[in-house]
């Protein structure tokens, strides 16, 4: 079944190429791009069925030599975490294409160019998760920036140039420092084995035995790259700018997918390769994580711009994910990985719904809206649902994850866990307050009843506005997400089954005994 994995890498690239030739015909470009992204989704489903949760650590492995002089291989394979992430990318891309169906691009830009970049982004991101050669991972980690740079810079809002360059430079710097560490690991391997290699499994064996000073330095190189990518406070400042300036579909990709490479990297590279350093430095990482939870939540509460709001919500969530990863218990680890999935779905849905609000009002300022539920009740309901899953209401998918993270972290890190719980309270505050300001009360706001009415004007509920409720296309985009949110909220087992063995293997590589299972053993 390795062909599925290869097809997953190739199909979007072929799609991008085809779409790039359709720059003259927007409609055809959209249909073709959607078709390719749906093929990708089918392939992802096949991949899921081909994966055996209790099988090898890395499955469907395949590869060829690339640069033999350095033992670099084009080597791909998946574990449970990568599988989940690839699946969620394949799920979100068609929705992004659907949601942006009628979006107007800046003058002189064609849908062909835009969708082509989106498909390239999809291929490269899938490849990042599937790479099992550290060099290849680095290469893709950096290449991943290029389509995104053009997506933000070419199709974004007023300050798009600034946001695109900032995004690129932050990630590029992080990547370069990671490269230094990767070369360091490579040098260790070539000393020890006589022949250099970047193979992930081999490097894990070699580097994890290194003394703790070496490990610490190499750890820091990788950590910086992942902390910027994830992002953890204080390396996060590129995200609000990128999220605010990018077109809404691209915001979904940045916040929902690209960021996960950071936390994925922590699980796949930091913990197994540098177990000693991971344990020693965990308290510092946890400080950043918990700071992120509080800082992100507080700033989200205070945002006036909806897209920046989304960015800070994500920063808070990444704090939770990092907390779970660095608590070193299987419950918290499983919670974190499922949080990565559920964050993509919940936040992805929230961003899409916010995008629909913005598409109606033409402004991303919260203060330009009010009482929208009167004219768009279905949209209001969707915003409420997306908001509730973001604040992890029981019965929605995120609740399972957040609960697992907190209950799993508590035995090893009670103080951090208690502080992080404050984030849950703040989440209720910022989500409900956002909903209240946009949807409830009398119809008001420049975006809804027009600037002509003057500041503070209140609309006449009897008068018809041009703002309509969700149309069929928007319903079709949101419906799958609603189903998944509720399904995973009540029955998360299929996902947990896939990720639990991988998380267990990761923790074994770190060499921690799980306090929770030990207690059960007694």
């Amino acid at each position: 079944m390795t062909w599925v994995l290869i097809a997953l890498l190739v199909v979007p690239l072929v799609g991008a190429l085809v779409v790039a030739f359709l720059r003259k015909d927007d409609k055809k470009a959209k249909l073709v791009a959607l078709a390719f992204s749906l093929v990708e989704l089918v392939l992802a489903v096949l991949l899921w069925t081909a994966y055996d949760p209790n099988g090898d650590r890395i499955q469907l492995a395949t590869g060829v030599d690339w640069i033999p002089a350095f033992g670099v291989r084009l080597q791909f394979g998946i574990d449970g975490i990568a599988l989940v992430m690839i699946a969620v990318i394949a799920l979100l891309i068609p929705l992004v294409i659907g949601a942006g169906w009628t979006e107007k691009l800046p003058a002189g830009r064609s849908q062909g160019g835009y969708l082509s970049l989106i498909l390239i982004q999809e291929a490269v991101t899938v490849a990042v998760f599937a790479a099992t050669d550290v060099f290849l991972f680095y290469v893709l980690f950096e290449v991943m920036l290029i389509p995104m740079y053009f997506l933000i810079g070419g199709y974004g809002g007023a300050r798009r140039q600034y946001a695109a360059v900032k995004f690129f430079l932050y990630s590029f710097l992080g990547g370069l420092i990671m490269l230094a560490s990767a070369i360091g690991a490579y040098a260790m391997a070539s000393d020890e084995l006589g022949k250099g290699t970047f193979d992930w499994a081999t490097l894990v064996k070699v580097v994890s035995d290194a003394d703790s000073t070496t490990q610490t330095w190499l750890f820091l190189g990788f950590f910086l790259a992942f902390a910027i990518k994830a992002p953890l406070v204080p390396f996060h400042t590129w995200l609000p700018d990128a999220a605010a300036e990018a077109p809404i579909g691209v915001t979904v990709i940045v916040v929902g997918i690209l960021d996960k490479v950071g936390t994925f990297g922590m699980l796949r590279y930091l913990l197994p390769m540098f177990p000693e350093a991971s344990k020693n430095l965990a308290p510092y990482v946890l400080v950043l994580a918990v700071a992120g939870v509080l800082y992100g939540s507080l700033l989200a509460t205070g945002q006036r711009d909806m897209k920046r709001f989304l960015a800070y919500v994500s920063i808070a969530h990444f704090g939770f994910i990092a907390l779970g990863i660095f608590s070193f218990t299987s419950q918290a680890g499983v919670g974190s990985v499922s949080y990565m999935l559920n964050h993509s779905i919940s936040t992805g849905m929230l961003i899409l719904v916010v995008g629909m609000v913005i598409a109606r009002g033409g402004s991303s300022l919260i203060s330009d809206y009010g009482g929208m539920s009167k004219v768009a009740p279905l949209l209001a309901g969707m915003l409420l649902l997306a908001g509730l899953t973001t604040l992890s209401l029981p019965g929605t998918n995120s609740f399972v994850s957040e609960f697992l993270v907190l209950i799993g972290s508590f035995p090893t890190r009670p103080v951090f866990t208690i502080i992080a719980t404050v984030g849950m309270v703040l989440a209720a505050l910022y989500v409900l307050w956002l909903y209240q300001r946009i949807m409830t009360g009398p119809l008001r706001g420049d975006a809804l009843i027009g600037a002509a009415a003057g500041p503070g004007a209140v609309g006449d509920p009897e008068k018809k506005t041009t703002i309509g409720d969700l149309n069929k296309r928007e319903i079709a985009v949101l419906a799958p997400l609603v189903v998944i949110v509720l399904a995973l909220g009540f029955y998360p087992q299929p996902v947990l089954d896939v990720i639990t063995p991988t998380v267990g293997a990761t923790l074994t590589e770190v060499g921690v005994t799980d306090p929770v299972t030990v207690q059960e053993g007694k």
Partner: protein
Amino acid sequence: MNLLVAQAQTIEAPEIDYGALAPLLIVLGAACISVLLEALLPKHQRWAVQLVLTLVTLVGAVGSLILYATSERPEQGVATLAGAIAVDSPSLFLWATLLVLGFGSVLLIADRSVEPGGAFVAQAAIRPGTVQDRAQATKTGMQTEVFPLTLFALGGMMTFVAANDLLTMFIALEVLSLPLYLLCGLARRRRLLSQEAAVKYFLLGAFASAFFLYGVALLYGYAGSVKLSAIATAAGGTDRSDTLLFAGFGLLVVGLLFKAAVGPFHAWTPDVYQGAPTPVTAFMAACTKVAAFGGILRVLTVAFENTQWEWRGVLYGVAVVSMVIGAILGLTQTDVKRMIAYSSVAHAGFLLIGSIALTPEGDAPGVSATMFYLLAYGFTTIAAFGIVSLVRNSDGEATHLSQWAGLAKRSPIVAATFTFLLLALAGIPLTSGFIGKFVVFSAAIDAGLTPLVVIALVASAVAAFFYLRVIVLMYFSDPAPDGPTVTVPGAFTTIAITLGAVVTLVLGLWPTFVLDWAGTGTFLS
């Protein structure tokens, strides 16, 4: 009298390995023929004949090189001409690099489609602003002596990288420099800037040569010989004066670093790059870099390998200064050519890292890495300057960055190619620039220079900003209303740009072949 006769009898003509020297002899011989042609041929025939001669020469030199490299030859290399020239694997690699990059540069130099009559003025000695100057500006005559000058410079560079003693090296340095000084002053447009560039380059270059020669003299005083191997032997455990050794080394290296445009000896670079005709800038940026670093590599690894612990710290600092100057000052530039000049200063810092990557055991993992970097960088630079020469307004090349705004809308292919080349200069994966950085940095980490590598990586990230700025301008800004047009290039420039861009891509994807080739052998010592 008898004594003199006796001495005269003992002098034997040195053995000459013609097969090994063939590429060098072909280039220098053709340069001499080219000068004669310049004197004998009527004006209207010169350009075509000179061009054909130059290209045939370069192809022939590469052919003879391949013939020699694939034949049965001593693995260690041979020292010929009484040990003055060492033809070993690195020499052959650098020669091939120089010849191929020279070929690309000659194509740019020969182009007459972009600028009517070519990028070179007919009479460089006319004072700018005079009546004669204005009259000349309306004509399309071209100085065809650029071809012999280029060939001489190339011959000098080839001698330089293979020179096995310091005196030969000095002669080669002059042979390569003098034609370059002249070439810099030949720009058709902006005569004053061009002349200024030539004078600046000449004066500072003369200074650097003096430093170099002084260093040679002191080292001769130290070792009693100018041979690189003799200096190495002398430095390996004798009680001679360390002052002579290190003063000599310091002066010698200053001369070399000047040619390589390593900061803080880079002050001429931006002015000369900006003022020189763009094809010449391409030639200098690609080939002079190769030659200078070829010389540095040989001197450091052959003559001074066993004193590395004394000088490594100094060059460590120089590399840092060069990277910092290149990266930071590059940020403030508003002219494309000056920006690439500062980028070359930063690159020189990276190259120096590779050059000083010697392990305590005496291995030099940096040699093959640096040579790969030189090859990769050369091709990228030639193509980049090729593109710079295309973006023009009525006043000649539009090199001010603001004029590049919105270029992608009007010329998507040119903008995309330039973007790719800038990404290569920034060292983004899937380009040769990345592989070059990677091999240099891994060699440096092998040699225990990890902190330097971290500094280099940060400098790369800073430098990436000014490359990105150009991409932002081209893609995300609205075009200026009276912006420049992109000239449709003729065959020569198109070939040169395509060659550079394709090599940049291919070496980014499949570097193995060249990496293996660069790593086949070590310097003859």
